[in-house]
């Protein structure tokens, strides 16, 4: 009896415990579906993400560095890179926006009957990958983004750069065909054109023009370019510009990279502007100057003060051309016709704020953040330079944008085509000078439009002399253009004309270094940029590959980025100092 009782108790106990445990869900093992992330995403969500991320990268590292290459800022102006330099950017692009773009194209193809998203994807792919080629030469393309394919490719091959360009051109043709199809799917997530298909079509054609022109030294592209011009469906009006406008919210901070550097912190953290660029604009009386640049100080540093002495630009070199503007007799004489000690106090105060660096000045970095010249209201949305004032503190409008393919760029392309290929541009403008005038008009109007937003700017520059107390006399836009047009070497050699045009493009493409860097490698122009003060390495003909890619993908070529052998396929010049 006792034993029976015991056994019964034990059985009861065990069963009760088992039951009480199993009665809850603890035995249900089907709980491994991630509740935190979606398993699919709509194409419009991908599109918005691609545009935002890609634009930030283009306007950030790519633009910053190539602007530095072209002596407008000091970013990487010594061309000194290692495989670590672009590791982060490369990794971000391939695992981020470029992959999502690929997903977008695949999804639009798979959905069928979705030609608009597909066309947009194709145009973006052509732009982004031709840009990747411009910076890296051969890159993974046909085998890229197949980590999750049914037969995954873990070490994608590097496609020939010329072949990628060719495919980009065919993508643009496909996109144009797709835009002609009717679709019931409304395009959302389009931060560029908000679903306007006409503009996308014009972009596709203008992008073709851009890529064809880029390859003009290695292929016979005259006929194709002529056909595009004759067709007359290019971006020739600012309304059609391919540009990305950055959000203005502080949190999350997706503002223009230059704005973030110069205005987001407690004080400015922007690096330096190039002295030559600022000097020549001042010398020209270029009215874009107060939009491009913002002076932070009016105090002249005292070279007799030991601390100031080290803070003065070029403090550790003797071979600067521009040095410290306000104390450089060459500069003060050229601008104001007097030696430094003969400057008026307003001239002195004005020049004190022009605080950048000569090209590749290796002097140490002093505590000059509150002194440096920082970006103005164009294109990053900082402060219009009515008076000198500190950066940082979220000042300015923060209405920044990145011009990717604009009407003035189209016109500069057409000028180059006319000069070098003999393209007939009469469909767009009556003459090269008319076209140049039109390009400059478009660009300057954009400067006024964006540079005045959220600011108090006297829009009529002829009143500036009375409104602002600048000692510099800025010309009106019209006067400057007239001057530029008048000096155009109409009867000159193609080389002279091209040099003239690309020098103007150098001033106009401020804010898009990619255009300048490409043009320079294609033409060697403008040729009058200051020689770097130090040259630890040669002019960068491209970027080095990413360290991770070298480690993880055995197909990654080994190159030396400043060696002529590394030049991108369309670069026949292979510039060396």
């Amino acid at each position, binding site marked *: 009896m006792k034993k029976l009782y015991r056994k019964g108790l034990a059985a009861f106990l065990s069963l009760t415990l088992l039951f009480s445990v199993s009665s809850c869900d603890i035995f*249900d093992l089907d709980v491994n*579906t*991630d509740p935190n992330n979606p398993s699919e995403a709509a194409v419009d969500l991908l599109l918005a993400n691609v545009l935002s991320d890609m634009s930030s990268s283009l306007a950030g590292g790519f633009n910053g560095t190539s602007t530095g290459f072209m002596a407008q800022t000091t970013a990487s102006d010594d061309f000194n890179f290692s495989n670590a330099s672009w590791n982060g950017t490369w990794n971000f692009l391939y695992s981020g926006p470029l992959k999502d773009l690929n997903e977008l194209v695949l999804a639009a193809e798979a959905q069928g009957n979705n030609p608009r998203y597909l066309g947009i994807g194709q145009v973006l792919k052509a732009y982004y990958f031709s840009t990747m080629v411009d910076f890296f030469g051969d890159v993974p393309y046909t085998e890229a983004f197949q980590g999750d394919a049914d037969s995954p490719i873990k070490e994608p091959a590097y496609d020939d750069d010329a072949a990628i360009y060719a495919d980009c051109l065919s993508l643009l043709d496909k996109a144009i065909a797709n835009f002609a199809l009717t679709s019931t799917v409304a395009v959302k997530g389009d931060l560029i054109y908000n679903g306007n298909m006409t503009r996308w079509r014009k972009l596709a054609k203008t992008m073709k023009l851009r890529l064809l022109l880029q390859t003009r030294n290695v292929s016979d592209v005259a006929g194709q370019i002529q056909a595009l011009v004759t067709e007359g469906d290019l971006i020739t009006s600012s309304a059609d510009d391919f540009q990305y406008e950055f959000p203005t919210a502080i949190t999350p901070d997706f503002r223009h990279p230059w704005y973030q550097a110069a205005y987001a912190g407690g004080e400015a953290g922007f690096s330096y502007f190039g002295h030559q660029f600022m000097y020549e604009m001042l010398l020209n009386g270029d009215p874009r100057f107060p939009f491009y640049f913002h002076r932070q100080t009016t105090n002249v540093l005292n070279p007799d003060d030991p601390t100031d002495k080290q803070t003065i630009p070029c403090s550790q070199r003797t071979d600067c051309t521009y040095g410290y503007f306000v104390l450089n007799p060459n500069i003060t004489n050229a601008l104001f016709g007097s030696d430094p000690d003969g400057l008026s106090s307003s001239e002195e105060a004005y020049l004190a704020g022009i605080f950048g660096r000569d090209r590749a000045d290796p002097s140490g970095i002093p505590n000059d953040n509150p002194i440096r010249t920082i970006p103005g209201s164009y294109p990053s949305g900082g402060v219009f330079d009515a008076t000198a004032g500190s950066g940082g503190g979220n000042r300015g409008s923060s209405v920044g944008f990145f011009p990717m393919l604009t009407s003035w760029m189209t016109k500069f392309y057409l000028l180059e085509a006319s000069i070098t290929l003999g393209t007939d541009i009469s469909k767009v403008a009556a003459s090269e000078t008319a076209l140049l005038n039109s390009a400059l008009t478009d660009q300057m109007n954009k400067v006024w439009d964006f540079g005045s937003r959220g600011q108090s700017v006297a829009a009529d520059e002829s009143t500036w002399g009375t409104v602002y107390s600048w000692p510099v006399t800025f010309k009106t836009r019209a006067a400057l253009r007239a001057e530029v047009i008048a000096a155009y070497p109409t009867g000159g050699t193609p080389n002279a004309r091209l040099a003239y045009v690309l020098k103007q493009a150098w001033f106009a493409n401020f804010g898009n270094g990619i255009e300048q860097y490409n043009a320079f490698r294609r033409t060697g122009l403008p040729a009058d940029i200051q020689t770097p003060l130090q040259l630890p390495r040669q002019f960068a003909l491209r970027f080095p590959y990413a360290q991770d890619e070298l480690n993880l993908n055995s197909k990654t070529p080994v190159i030396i980025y400043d060696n002529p052998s590394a030049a991108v396929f369309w670069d026949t010049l292979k510039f060396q100092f």
Partner: protein
Amino acid sequence: MKRILLLCFMLVSVFVSEVWAQDRVVSGTITSSDDGSSLPGVNVVLKGTTVGTITDIDGNYKISVPAAGGTLVFSFIGLTTQESEIGARSVIDVAMASDVKQLTEVVVTAVGIEREKKALGYSVANLSSDQVSQRAEPDPLRAMQGKMPGVNITGGNGAPGSSTKINIRGISSMTGNSQPLFIVDGIPFDNSVNGDDQPGRNTVTSNRAFDIDPNNIESISILKGAAASALYGSRATNGVVVITTKASKKNTKKGMEISYNGSVNWQEISGIPDYQDVYTQGSNQVYNGGFIGNWGAPMPDYVDKINAQYGTNYKKYYGVYPDNVYDPVTDTDSHPYPNGTAPNPINNRYPGLFPEFVQEYTMEDGSTRNVSAPYQIQPHDIIGGFFERGRVVENGVTLSSGSEKASINTGFSRMNQEGIIPNQTVDRTTLFFGGNGQLDNGVFVSGTVNYVNTNQVSPQSGASAFNDYYGGGGGSIFARLFYLPRNFDLNGLPFEHPVDGSNIFYRALDNPRWIAKNNLYESNVNRVYGNITAGYDVTEWFNVTFKGGVNTYHEFRRDVIRPGGIFFPTGGVTTDDIENTEQDYNLIMTFSKDINEDLSFRALVGMNANQRQYSRRTIGGANVITASLLKTNATSTQIVARDYDRLRRLIGVYSDISLSYKDFLFLNVVGRNDWSSTLPQGANNYFYPGASLSFVLSDAVTMPSFINFAKLRVAQTKVGRDADPYQVRTVYGLGLPIASPRYSGTFNTASLGNTLGNAALKPEFTDEFEVGAEARVLNNIIGLDVTYFSRSSTDQIASAAVARSTGFTQEIVNIGELTNKGWEIGLDVTPVKLSNSFTWNSYFAFTKIKSEIVDAGPTGEIFIGGAGSTFGTIHRNGAPYGQIFGTSNARDDEGTLLIDKNTGLPFPTQTSGIIGDPNPDFTLGWTNTFSFKGVTLKALIDWKQGGDFYSFTAASLMLRGQLQNSVDREGLRVVPGVYGSNQTYEAVLDENGNKIRNTTPITAFDSHFSNGWGAYGQDEVNVYDGTVIRLRELSLGYSLPKSILENTPFGRASISLTGRNLWFNAPNVLEGLNLDPEQLTTTADSNQQGFEYGSTPTTRRYGFNVSLSF
């Protein structure tokens, strides 16, 4: 030891045989010969029969014996077995003595099985209460440092409550968690850090094992190898730390006992660098009040000396007035500041804000101007003035009471620690209750419940590579504190705006004092854990036990950046709610049977169900509306940064079969099968077996008389492990919405995830072989315990980096192989043992582990990450675990530095590589105990040999010219090397084809700046060998003798003086750095190792403890 003996009570009771009626009855009381206390649970058996009984809770027994003759055998694990002829006696009292042959007699092994140590075929380490409590160390893990071979414990840093890393027998996971499983009172105890794994800000974050008060620990068993831990299943790969708290103490003395422990300890910074006080801030030997570096002119006191020595012409003033004119011919200034002064650096930045820093200056032309007042240039003790003396106060009371059938334990404890920087505290309050008893129906029940409240506060003081590098550490005190200009009076100058409280500093950085006052991180944890056990002997050989428990905590964090600073000017508040709940149930059936006199058998079959639920919600508020209210709802923008849930389940069935032969040969076979929710459905079950053998040589054969004990053991076991949840599929991620300035509305975004899921994920396995020997010789004067182990972890579930051109950053893979081979040696020597009770005991815990990445997957390497995308920790085929990966200087084929002829400096190679091995060659903990008549002196010396680390602190101090070793800077220097080309990366040859020795001179400043030896040089130059020897613990204790206590209410009283980390020496680290290499880069759950980013320095602690019992 008696406590451990008492633990056996339950186990032994399983074997109790029934008592048969016999002719007469013998009774008696069993006591301990050590202290005279009664011993419950002692086996009393009539020799040669199965007749027997056990003593009750008061040590009494009664046994029926034959009318004449017979012998009683009294046995108890851990005590020397005694035999006593009954003769005509009816009362036989016995005093039993400890069996000195058994150092630790009974150990808790997997799933709470208590076993004789000599029966174990594998190595288990034990610590008793007195080895971890009252050690001036509130962190239970750090209290164990240096005390057990095979266990490597690294404290994060000196911030109170900061996390601690523990690794047992090396690290067996390349990318996953490498922390052992914690089992507290039979239930898994979550030890997560819940960090963000950023190298930047907050390594003050705790690991949650910190919720255990070392003073409430009754005992700790560390199950080191797979053989010991396999029954715990999937999480046992990294070993298991089994902690029994005082709440679940199984037995107590009859009546009531109250004990009290209290201690006060003070703590100070363990080491500060040897700063140079010769040169001021600036560069190129010119003073500059805005610089960080100290490459300026000499301090006033050194000007004459240096001018005389080097023929230089330094001035004693450091600034000039506005009307100054410099005459280059005579090298004179017309209006210098007074000798020994410079313009006040605060007024330079905030002109006029502090009237006392303004001077009205009369210019030569008679006009007046407000200029910065003269500021005395002299060295300041920045560090010493900033750090404070911290304090640790601990108080704990335990009550226990026992009766014949039940006992209860309850108590509370409180710890309060103040760190060495302002506003850095942690406190911990524990309440516990536990009880056990035998119900009238024979069911044994026990249960415990613990409540812990842990609160931590710290200013932003995480590890922080300073701003110039990677931007992450801008908000931390340690972003700058160690590198401030020597002439900057941090502690004397103002740090906050007198009107709006915003940050004041000499340049655009956050003032460490401002951070310490305003930017606080706090964490509040409420944790409850408890368990219930019910067991029943169905028959004399069959027992059923059910154990179930829950362990849950909620942590609330708030991270505040006050507006008005530089790092985040508009300020921000982030809140983080973390909740973790684990349930664990076991049903265990035990069968035990003596097959015959020589052979006994025991089998255990168990079933385990486990569920872990985790959720975390993070809200980031930016732009604080008013500095007087620092809450998320008082910010102008809030983002829900995280709303994360995780659920995982595991079911296991396991078995443990033991056979013992003649009490000298023991075979143990284990096996477990798991079903995990985190593996692909249909392929989510896996089995792993193991076997171990113990052979007690000294019991089997007659040994020479000098050998007291000898045992050999061998084990081979496999442990499986499942994945983390949600790794089977590739998912999308939603991004932050974008407001377009051009088109109305908000654009939502999404991106395909960067981690490739793996639908064919398999469990990973660790195979381990271990062999060991234990011996005690020369009358137990020398005891040796040696283990060799070799473990191989295969099919590692790793998140391996893939070339980004695949579109992904990493993939979840089953890859490769990682091996750890090592030696663990415990040597216990008692060189002196005098009859007057003086004893000197020495214990050595030696560990040597060699790891090797045999196969890191298809690419041959896994880059874990670190400070940069090409600078961090890497696993690479053929190399040991977790190497330091970074840039190096180019060298020629002979290893000589290549020098750029133009700069006179080395230049980097294009490609990064392995530049250091952070794994130590060996570690040795040496504990010396001297005792004499109640006085005990204990010293633990800890030696870690090798282990490279990258020191950001060293790099920064060198870069900034702060250290004494940079005082010699007037002359030029030449870097030893040959000229090389940065195109070919080869030496440049002269016309004869010979290499050209570098003769390009550079200044000391250049040598430490770009491409030199400071932080701006290549990564390799800042890697140091982290060998360190330290005096980890020192204590002097005195137990009052019984004779004195007799007339007091106290049963026991002792007082001790303790010291911790009183001294250390790291001989191969940069001279004068005085940096304790024992600092973690990130939190303890990270796989990164070998980086020191600058964080709260470690501390030196000293104080006293009092322990009383009534």
